[in-house]
């Protein structure tokens, strides 16, 4: 079943679990770092052939959540199951079933591209069947074949990320964690990585990725999980997340335009927020509020558009201020 279709009609929250058995099932994750609670009661799940996008502003707890899920950090509370294996009690089996592409390049700088994949393969038991063939397949599929004998530091940023993702899946994991896989890449390299991620989904892998790029989250993810201050603020399909956090419409009007003061007063009276983007206000409104706005300012010039994920972070920031 196509995971995107399966989740299109789902409501927000954990009740929207996919019908297929979960490959990642994390519940009640909690973590403090440096005396500060950075993840507080986060649940997340991901099924086969599904991409779960983890979104949130800096410091929201995305990387910490991801690091707990792949066993790098130990949660203070909660449980994590990978392909049915408890990450603490059955650590070897759980870790055998997951692959990780970290935010930083953590490939082995002392080995060539090919030997990086060989060496990574040696860190898994049971041993990978047909490792040599698997590596050839990955080199071809990830466009790394012509660089196979080069050292990783000679690669461009995009190809380094390809190598990182290839390392993450060399042992044919069931769950792949990709922490900001396209950060710092040019548009062409980003699209190449998107295609690789889509390929992993087509292979039936559960993919969990974090990103700051809204277009990336929208294009790649079947479901989104929005974190804010270490908690789940919203989850579900990109549309339902937007409706939940941002609203139905965005009114865009110039800050310096005529009637701006009246609009500011109108917003203040209703305790509504607006975000400032360059020289414009972006005001999220639901249908009823929009009707009132239209009636209140019949002569004002403005634009009404549907919200995008770019409106998500300002909305979260406003919640934080409130």
């Amino acid at each position: 079943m196509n995971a995107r279709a399966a989740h299109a009609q789902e409501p927000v929250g954990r009740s929207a679990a996919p019908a297929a058995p979960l490959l990642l099932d994390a519940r009640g994750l909690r973590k403090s770092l440096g005396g500060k609670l950075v993840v507080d009661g986060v649940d997340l799940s991901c099924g086969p052939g599904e991409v779960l996008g983890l979104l949130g502003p800096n410091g929201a707890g995305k990387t910490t959540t991801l690091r707990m899920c792949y066993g790098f950090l130990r949660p203070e509370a909660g449980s994590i199951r990978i392909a049915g294996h408890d990450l603490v009690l059955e650590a070897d089996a759980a870790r055998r079933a997951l692959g990780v592409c970290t935010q930083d390049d953590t490939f082995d700088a002392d080995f060539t591209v090919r030997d990086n994949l060989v060496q990574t393969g040696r860190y898994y038991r049971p041993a990978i069947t047909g490792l040599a063939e698997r590596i050839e397949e990955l080199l071809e599929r990830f466009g790394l074949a012509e660089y196979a004998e080069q050292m990783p530091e000679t690669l461009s940023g995009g190809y380094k990320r390809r190598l990182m993702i290839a390392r993450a899946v060399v042992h044919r994991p069931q769950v792949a964690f990709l922490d900001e896989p396209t950060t710092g890449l040019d548009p062409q390299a980003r699209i190449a990585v998107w295609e690789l991620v889509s390929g992993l989904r087509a292979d039936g892998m559960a993919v969990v990725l974090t990103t700051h790029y809204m277009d990336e989250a929208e294009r790649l993810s079947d479901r989104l999980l929005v974190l804010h201050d270490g908690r789940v603020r919203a989850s579900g399909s990109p549309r339902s997340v937007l409706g939940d956090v941002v609203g139905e419409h965005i009114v865009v009007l110039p800050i310096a335009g005529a009637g701006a003061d009246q609009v500011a007063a109108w917003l203040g009276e209703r305790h509504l927020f607006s975000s400032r983007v360059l020289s414009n206000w972006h005001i999220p409104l639901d249908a009823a509020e929009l009707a009132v706005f239209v009636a209140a300012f019949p002569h004002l010039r403005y634009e009404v558009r549907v919200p995008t994920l770019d409106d998500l972070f300002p909305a979260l920031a406003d919640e934080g201020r409130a």
Partner: protein
Amino acid sequence: MNTYLPAFAWQSRAVLGRHIRVHLRKWHTAMLPPVCEPLIMLLAFGVGLGRQMSDLSWNGHPVDYLTYLAPGILAYTAFMTAFFQSLFSAYVRMHYQKSWEGQLTTQVRLEHVVWGEALWAASLATFYAVMVCVVLLGFGMAGALHLHWLWLPVAIPLLFLAALAFSTIGLLFTATLPSMDHMGLPFFLVIMPMGFASSTYFPLPDVPLLLMAVQINPLNHLAEGMRLLLVAGTPSWHLVWAAGLCLLMLLILVPLDLRLLRKRVFGDR
């Protein structure tokens, strides 16, 4: 998690194998230090300085300086190589290359990474010590050095144990040094005091306080034990003391290293 069992786990061997493979890729340059260092030391100090001085009085017998120095260099090589690998090289892999983090996202866990580093440091130190033995044999074949050569194979396992123990001191600094800029600190705090407060380069002066202090210096027992073994052909209590102190270091420092490195790498426990 048991502290010592992971030393025998396949993951630790996988990490050790990684280091060996990297070293073998650079074998032609990696071979230079273990051959050149003892050669230079023996030529400069043993032959050069030794010619300027009369025989030393060691263990109630006169002995020329080259003969005195040779076993000391063997012990010092094990000490210095293990310390340097587990400190400088491990720090670079942990902090700059991030290869530890890469390993920790697989089935390898921190205790395997740490044991892999310690075993590698000990293995390399032992290999370097073997290379020193080859250089010493060269001096012997040239008639410049007379040792009880048949005892050399007996010395190797003890040098491995000592190197493993010395690597735990290096890892302690890897876990605690704030930055690369502080890399001189362990050399100043550990290498120089341990190196000079031992009988590696010269017989220790007859100062009661110093002689008492060096009783807890495993390098002193190792150097003196190697000397009794190779020069006099006598296994001594110094070797037992050295082995005992090394085991004690492993017992105390491995759990401490793991605890401090866990805090450093994961930042939270």
